[in-house]
């Protein structure tokens, strides 16, 4: 206890890190489930179904499978780099998440902010810095496998990431101009932040003035995370599985997780930069807490109802009681501690929308050709982002003489 009181930073940080890791890991796992479900629905399939009710335990099963599969290391590979690559990818991805505040940075516990693992003043740049290092994971993986397709994939992805990183950063600068700070928390709720309303009903989110920047960001973000329709590095039809062709077992899982972590990161960033982060669209009134309460209660009710429907699967009963309990607990938390519960609620809700968008895009859009990718990035996206920046700057100057 004495140590705690002496070094609050260390202790609280450690706790927060552990918590974040746990949450994020779980989220990653269930993101896969979510994605498969949604895509299945789009293709009018059932998706994962057998492992647990509605395949709820599928991610668990996948994890176990990854862990117990044989870990093949190509003999001609460059061992150090080969092993280093996946770790690099995952670690960087998770580190990036640690920089993101999911709630007001002024809510303190033991003198430390609750909702941010680390609230640094240059958060945004640091975030970009760390994500920019993510390239190494892919590139090294491609190179160290010492085989054609991975090399190709690595080359492609590194080229793609370098190209789109530029437009990604540029598209954000407009927001920075409006916010006047690099601190992610202040971008949301700082003096130049997104609190308040236009015309008393349009939330003061950057997405409205920065609509061009937002779309640039969205596109660049998808490309940055190597997702459809920009998933050239792992284009099955062209080069098997791209940079992680030679990877198997848990290393492959790492890449997988890294990819989803990156998705989360960019979604969080989009939320914070363009959609008012944890701010509620309604202005944070007292009554808003009933929204999540109602939702959770409804979900709990649905689960109870579905328990009632099929009586034979005892396992299902067990799971559903657990899920119901979780929902009830969440509802209670939202009801009794709204100041701690509401910001994450809105934040996660917004992220969920982005996630759905990701999956939606994957389910619908075809893949680009490589030259199209490059020309699109350099000849369309970059100029657009630049133009947006210039226009923003000019307008800003006009409005703030």
């Amino acid at each position, binding site marked *: 206890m004495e140590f705690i009181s002496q070094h609050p930073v260390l202790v609280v940080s450690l706790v927060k890190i552990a918590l974040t890791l746990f949450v994020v890991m779980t989220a990653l796992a269930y993101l896969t489930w979510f994605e498969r479900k949604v895509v299945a629905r789009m293709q009018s399939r059932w998706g994962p179904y057998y492992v647990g009710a509605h395949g709820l335990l599928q991610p668990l099963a996948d994890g176990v499978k990854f862990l117990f599969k044989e870990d093949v290391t190509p003999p001609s590979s460059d061992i150090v780099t080969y092993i280093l690559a996946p770790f690099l990818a995952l670690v960087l991805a998770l580190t990036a998440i640690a920089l993101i505040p999911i709630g007001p940075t002024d809510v303190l516990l033991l003198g430390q902010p609750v909702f941010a693992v680390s609230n640094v003043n240059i958060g945004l740049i640091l975030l970009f810095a760390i994500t920019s290092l993510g390239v190494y994971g892919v*590139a090294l993986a491609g190179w160290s496998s010492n085989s054609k397709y991975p090399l190709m994939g690595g080359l492609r992805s590194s080229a793609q990431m370098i190209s789109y990183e530029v437009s990604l950063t540029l598209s954000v600068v407009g927001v920075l101009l409006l916010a006047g700070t690099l601190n992610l928390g202040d971008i949301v709720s700082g003096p130049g932040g997104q609190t308040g309303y236009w015309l008393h009903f349009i939330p003061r989110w950057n997405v409205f003035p920065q609509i061009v920047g937002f779309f640039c960001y969205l596109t660049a973000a998808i490309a940055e995370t190597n997702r459809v329709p920009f998933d050239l590095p792992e284009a099955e039809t062209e080069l098997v599985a791209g940079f992680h062709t030679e990877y198997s077992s848990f290393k492959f899982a790492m890449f997988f997780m890294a990819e989803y972590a990156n998705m989360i990161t960019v979604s969080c960033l989009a939320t914070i930069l363009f959609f008012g982060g944890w701010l509620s669209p309604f202005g944070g009134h007292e009554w808003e807490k009933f929204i999540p309460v109602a939702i959770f209660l409804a979900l709990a009710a649905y689960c109870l109802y579905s328990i009632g429907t099929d009586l034979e699967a005892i396992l299902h009963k067990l799971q559903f009681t657990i899920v119901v309990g979780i929902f009830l607990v969440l509802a209670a938390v939202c009801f009794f501690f709204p100041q701690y519960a509401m910001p994450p609620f809105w934040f996660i809700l917004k992220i969920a929308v982005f996630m759905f968008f990701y999956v939606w895009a994957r389910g619908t859009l075809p893949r680009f050709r490589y030259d199209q990718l490059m020309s699109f990035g350099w000849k369309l996206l970059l100029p657009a982002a630049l133009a947006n920046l210039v226009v923003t700057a000019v307008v800003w100057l006009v409005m703030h003489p």
Partner: protein
Amino acid sequence: MIVPLIVFFACALLAVVGAVLLILAHEPIHSALSLVLVMVALAILYLLLGAPFVAAIQILVYAGAIMVLFVFVIMLLNAGVEERTDWSKIGKWVGLPLGFLLLLEIAHWLYHSEPGTAIANGGGAPPAASTFALSTAIFRQYLFPFEATSILILIAILGALVLARKDQ
């Protein structure tokens, strides 16, 4: 305040090790990685020195862009293990010792240099530089160098294009 001390020595060690690895590595890509290591270590040192923005830039541009470019080129040329030719006699016999001599000289000189006595971390250390102040300095006081460098970059881009273009 034991933490900065630990961090400093850790990073310093990392940096030196990275540099040595850069020299000893046979694979160019290993050299590149060790250099990235050095850069990251330096970035942390910058943070320690109260220059967070520079640290971020260091990682973003150096580690994240320049070195990626290096790695990219290495992969593109598929540069394998370097052949250890010894065609530079003087480089072989004189270069190395002289290099270390220079190392010692510079280290000695810098160590005994005037500002060396100031305290970097710990008691009475100055605060970290705010990004605002830095940007103000760059765009007000150093505006002309800034523009000049931007033009330099433009020229560099053109030069790179001209060099890389397939001559038809």
